[in-house]
């Protein structure tokens, strides 16, 4: 093309960092290092000799700056450009809400806990599941790897738990429901990713079928990830709603609830089950509706409507990062206000209150029923959310409760949540005692009965 017809090459000196890579690129040697400091940028831009330049444009593809060299003058003076009014963009797309689709009345299913949670995920509209096999949670992934392809869904076996949580970060970031099955050592590996999800405000559901540690421990039932779930979700100021099921039915119901809550708050939700809950088979009644997921306005879905969106947890400005943390903390306060859940049995007139969750709550319920038959004023308070701890339901009971017995399969992790909640509520609370097992052994109803009898006798 003759010189006249090619568009001229224009240097915007303020945007040139003076690296000189264009100098080498110019076959006519029309560009040279400058000598004058550009006042606005502090750099020394290159200089183009327009008498020599023949508009060949080879320098353009050598310039690492998007707008340093161009064919038009970059309009630096435009006030919008200078002061950062957002350049015109299409408005953020509307949220497409998830849709409830009625199901016909169905007979009960007989399901293992892991299967029940998997079916809960399918009924919640989850079609993207990632996972790494780990006992005693694996059956969830196995069932979904079989069923998802029949529903146009994907199960991807990741190369590790670290990869798993990051696959979920991608799918959650695209605005779709996603989940995994894991167990304690695997869950521990996912924590960094969970922190990133919380920071970037992305939804995802984790079914953590807890087993004993420390280290490799073994595969029986334990509850010793409650600390991680409630207090240790990776680095930073992190929290997530932690649900504690007690049966296959609740594995399904709480998985469905988890999907609802994860999108409501744009924050991960953890279903913390113990090993028995993954393995126990029982009756499961199906809900009367399933969910077709929507597509939130904030999603980075990879289409034109959502192309302006960003998932990120990095804020260079410390004030902004503090504000972001405050925004996330405000969500935690909302969760604490609205999402406390519990079940109480014989608690209204109890003098001794047993507190337990997961499978130990079943043993505790059996013990309480037995002790009530014997005439002892004993009740059960079962947190359904371990975080937020359901303190609001407990406070009124403390008028008549004289002692609390915490029953758990860990070295006091549930009790710590109780103590923190009491303290935060400004209460000393009644006398606390406990029954604990570890290593895969669950407290039995008989032991609970003996413990309760013991503390009542002492009093």
């Amino acid at each position: 093309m003759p010189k006249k017809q090619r568009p001229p090459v224009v240097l915007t000196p303020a945007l040139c960092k003076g690296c000189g890579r264009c100098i080498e690129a110019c076959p006519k040697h029309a560009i040279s290092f400058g000598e004058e400091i550009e006042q606005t940028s502090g750099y020394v831009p290159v200089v183009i000799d327009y008498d020599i330049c023949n508009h060949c444009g080879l320098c353009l593809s050598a310039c690492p700056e998007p707008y340093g060299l161009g064919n038009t003058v970059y309009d630096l003076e435009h006030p919008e450009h200078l002061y950062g009014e957002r350049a015109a963009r299409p408005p953020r797309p509307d949220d497409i809400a998830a849709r409830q689709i009625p199901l016909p009345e169905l007979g009960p299913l007989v399901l293992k806990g892991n299967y029940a949670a998997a079916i809960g995920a399918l009924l919640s509209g989850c079609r993207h599941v990632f996972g790494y096999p780990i006992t005693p949670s694996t059956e969830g992934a196995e069932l979904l790897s079989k069923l998802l392809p029949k529903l146009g869904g994907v199960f991807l076996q990741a190369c590790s738990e670290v990869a798993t949580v990051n696959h979920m970060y991608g799918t959650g970031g695209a605005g779709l429901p996603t989940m995994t099955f894991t167990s304690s050592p695997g869950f521990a590996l996912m924590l960094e990713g969970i922190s990133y999800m919380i920071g970037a405000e992305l939804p995802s559901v984790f079914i953590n079928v807890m087993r004993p540690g420390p280290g490799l421990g073994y595969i029986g039932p334990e509850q010793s990830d409650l600390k991680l779930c409630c207090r240790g979700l990776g680095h930073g100021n992190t929290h997530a709603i932690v649900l504690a099921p007690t049966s296959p039915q609740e594995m399904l119901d709480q998985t469905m609830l988890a999907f609802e809550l994860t999108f409501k708050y744009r924050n991960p939700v953890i279903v913390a089950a113990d090993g028995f809950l993954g393995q126990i088979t029982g009756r499961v009644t199906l809900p009367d509706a399933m969910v077709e997921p929507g597509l939130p306005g904030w999603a980075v879905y990879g289409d034109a409507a959502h192309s302006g969106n960003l998932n990120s947890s990095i804020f260079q400005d410390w004030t902004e990062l503090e504000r972001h943390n405050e925004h996330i903390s405000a969500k935690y306060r909302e969760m604490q206000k609205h999402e406390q859940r519990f079940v109480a049995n014989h608690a209204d007139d109890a003098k001794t209150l047993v507190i337990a969750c997961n499978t130990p709550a079943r043993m505790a319920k059996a013990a309480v029923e037995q002790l009530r038959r014997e005439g002892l004023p004993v009740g059960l308070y079962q947190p359904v959310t371990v975080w937020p701890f359901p303190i609001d339901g407990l406070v009124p009971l403390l008028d008549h409760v004289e002692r609390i017995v915490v029953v758990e399969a860990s070295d006091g992790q549930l009790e710590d949540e109780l103590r923190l909640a009491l303290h935060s509520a400004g209460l000393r609370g009644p006398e606390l005692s406990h029954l604990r097992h570890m290593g895969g052994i669950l407290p039995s109803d008989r032991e609970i009965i003996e413990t309760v009898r013991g503390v009542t006798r002492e009093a």
Partner: protein
Amino acid sequence: MSGKTAFFEHFDRHAHGKGLKGATTHYCPGCGHGLAHKYVAESLVELGVEERTVMISPVGCAVFLFYYFDTGNTQAAHGRAPAVALGHKLANPESIVVSYQGDGDLASIGLAEIIHAAQLGIPISVVFINNAIYGMTGGQMAPTTLMGQTSTTTPHGRGRMQGPPMRVSEMISQLDGATYVERCALYDQRTRKACKKAIKKALTLQVEGRGFGFVEVLSECPTHWGMSSIDAEAHVRDVLSKAYPLGVLKDEAAEPWFAPEKPCFDPGRVVEVIEASAERPERFCSGFPEHVDPVDVSIKLAGAGGDGAQTAALLVTKAAINEGFDATHIPSYGPESRGGTSYADVHIARDEVLSPAAPEPHVLVAFNAPSLAKFASAVRPGGVIIYDSSVISAAPEVDASVRVYPVPCAEIASSLGARVVKNVVALGALQEALKLLADESFLTTLRLSLASKCAMIPVNEEAYRWGVKAVREGISAFDD
């Protein structure tokens, strides 16, 4: 610049677009990142896919990639960009997903993710910036740092104790899953042109659903190399590209294949897939087996892995639930269930099973001697023990109130030509000894469970009847 690109016209995310930051990158003068960005930005527009593109920002100097790309953007944890990219790609197969990573991110902390993403071969595009140094953290050794090269963590030069540098493209090109791998540079007009072409080619492979594309870019880091931009270009030309030869390492012809189905939310199909049904199973029991326990019956089934204790336990659980009771089954699980011992705890409750374990069962079904020895004494007074007398010779010593039934389960099953049904023989014996539910409760549940293996139904029914008969007639040894 020349053509249209996928860059924002104004970088509002870069310090809120204030002043010059709204139009310049955060990169050092002469840094290769800006060029690689430019070639991606141009290619996306040339392919007409910028609006459906998701750029994954790594951790490293390119962490702020999202300042510049007017596309969807997701910022990933260190090293995890390919995993995040796959999450995006699978969520929306029509999206174009680019994982953009540096050498620390991709070749060190994220090595597992990139290798498995490449081997998986799902069409995403990876741009790998190799400048043989950690930029963002201040010039530390990278996996790609050359032998002898100094960095802030190899002040005396990389030596034997740090191991030799890693040639990533060579590694990726060995993986069957990767379709296209090329190493490029940016030091002169020719290499820059080739780099742009390679990036566009990798993206094209993705747009057409053909495969995984990987472009390594030998890139200048004048800052941490302590060189001028011009010298840095020369360093890539004369040194880096000698250690990491440029060129196409793999370019396989691949047909378009990536076209996943759309997710299905049809309630009818979902119900079918989860094998739910509106049909309620028929009931055969007149009431809860109060003669065993007023509210809750517990049963332990124990044997070796393969004895069928778990299957039998599940059948009892299902039969009880079909009768409208609550029931649970907990297996011993994990490695134990593979060949070793296999125990199952079952509860049947009139209203609700509370404690699901069965430390003191009403009933013990034992398939081998160790199981019988271990659990016989735990059976409650007035309870029942059924054991396989074909493999256990000695009757257990138990409380006089416990009824003990030796049943030759294995021998009966063998005589029926199917050793696997010995657990069903035990089931028949259990029902006959205890009158737990009704015979039809078990037989119906058996038939339902075998719906997909109809041919097995007759032998199972026969096994069940033999179990009933053995208890009724006191058959403890079996000769066929």
